[in-house]
């Protein structure tokens, strides 16, 4: 067995395989399928200061090798998470990361302040890239000043690891990555979903209640790999790679492009046990290629 441990600036992962926010519930939904403690970590659903009902149904449609979603950050708010959900999952021996969203800078700060004292949550992932909410969300993630404002405010309020989740819906993702690095982000994760849209030509109506939504799944992978590779060259902080990872091969591709860890999203819907297969694949790959430490794969494209 090779060495699979990676470190995201103080956040120690037993292996580089995490799950992506909004695709893994609160972990519990997958507990019947495998032992969650085998994961490097999991990122829970986007959490806001107050309860959010999310967008009206319909919220999803399948697209070629992917899907569009318009969930709109439905969640019960951070207090509910801390009081009702966290106690049920805190015993799981893996890194639990809370994905944080807000409509105002003050919202992000308030949520992160509350999470400071949550013992087994050692990192937040700041979502400045959600395409499915009208206010805030992606708006903060598409300009350098917007991103800096949120991240510097959160940095002042939160004492553990800050991962900033970047939007791919920008002209140059490396500019945003450099901007958040400069104001104290410990790591960046990319990418979130790509803004997309689909129309039912029979009814002439959009498939989603919000008309536009976020595209995820295998169809976005080559773009995500490119963005991870560019970003890994542009910043000195670790990059967490995601976007269309369906199997172990895809995970290795992201590591080679420069990701220090990866997240699996939509693929969990198709095979709830896919993350375990990915961990096993990485291990086998390392044996096959005589690599003792997974860290030697990071940025290892020749």
């Amino acid at each position, binding site marked *: 067995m090779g060495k699979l441990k990676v470190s995201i600036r103080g956040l120690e992962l037993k292996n580089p395989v995490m799950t992506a926010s*909004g*695709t*893994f*519930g609160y972990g519990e*939904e*997958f507990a*019947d*399928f495998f032992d969650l403690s085998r994961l490097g970590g999991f990122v829970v*659903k986007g959490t806001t200061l107050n309860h959010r*009902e*999310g967008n*009206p*149904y*319909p*919220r*999803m*449609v*399948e*697209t*070629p*090798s*992917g*899907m569009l*979603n318009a*969930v709109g950050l*439905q969640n019960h708010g951070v207090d509910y998470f801390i009081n009702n959900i966290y106690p049920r999952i805190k015993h799981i021996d893996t890194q639990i990361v809370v994905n944080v969203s807000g409509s105002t800078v003050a919202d992000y700060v308030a949520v992160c302040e509350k999470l400071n004292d949550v013992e087994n949550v050692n990192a937040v992932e700041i979502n400045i890239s959600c395409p499915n909410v009208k206010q805030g969300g992606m708006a903060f993630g598409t300009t350098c000043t917007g991103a800096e404002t949120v991240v510097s405010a959160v940095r002042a309020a939160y004492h553990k690891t800050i991962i900033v989740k970047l939007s791919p819906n920008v002209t140059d993702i490396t500019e945003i990555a450099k901007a958040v690095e400069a104001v104290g982000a410990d790591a960046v994760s990319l990418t979130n979903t790509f803004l997309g849209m689909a129309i039912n030509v029979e009814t002439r109506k959009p498939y989603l209640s919000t008309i536009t939504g976020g595209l995820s*799944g*295998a169809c976005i992978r080559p773009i995500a790999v490119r963005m991870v590779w560019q970003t890994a060259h542009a910043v000195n902080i670790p990059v967490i790679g995601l976007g269309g990872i369906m199997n172990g091969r895809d995970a290795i591709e992201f590591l080679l492009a420069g990701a220090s860890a990866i997240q699996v999203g*939509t693929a*969990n*819907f*198709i*095979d*709830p*046990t896919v993350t375990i297969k990915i961990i096993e694949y990485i291990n086998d790959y390392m044996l096959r290629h005589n690599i003792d430490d997974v860290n030697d794969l990071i940025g290892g494209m020749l």
Partner: protein
Amino acid sequence: MKKYVKNFKVVDNIRMGDLYGLLKLAPIDGIMPDMLPGQFVQVYINCRDTYLRRPISINFVDKLRNELWILVRDAGKGTHHLLQVQRGDILNLVLPLGKGFSIKQGGKILLVGGGVGVAPLLLLGKILKEQGCLVSYLIGAKSKEDLLLIDEFAKYGVLYLSTEDGSMGEKGFVTQNKILQSDFDLIQCCGPLPMMKAVAKIARERHIDCEVSLENMMACGIGACLCCVEDTVSAGNVCVCKNGPVFNTNDLKWEN
């Protein structure tokens, strides 16, 4: 109820007309998970044109032969491909998902099904009968050819049929069938949305409790993505895949 990702072997694929098929599936490892009527499975369909799994109701569990039955209607790319499977092929299922219908211990129950929506009512009728309920089936379809598994249903309840063209049973919609004027302790219904809404309306007018099974568009099927929500009176947006697919119509915000 514990959920599994499990391989099943196709034991039989019985074609029923142009649009429907009954697939009989046996677990490769011989172990059939516990399931309740109204729960569903997520089928992986190995074809180029689909990406996500497809939700399909549990039609029946044949304990004697250790078979799980699913009734499939050709509704598009995935179900069309699914209906082509052959004896011996392997299907990967995630199951059992959702909460099923409530199981009354006795009483007069009317099970109303339309089209392929009859699927979950077969296992439901069997279990209800075992619990000492008096089961009646009201089954509706466009035409005789769309009335599925009639002989099977007859084993567990009294049959009332409606076809739109009058080729079998009463002519018209299920909602026009005379049996709906009788008294029941509970109506349990699965079919096209307009049919379920019409049945719910009649049930409400007659002060009969009514449960329906919804078919919202799903991605994960296990409550992880929040794509399949239905707006409820008791809790706002809830996942149909996890809190449903069966709901008491009093909890739904259906107009009228």
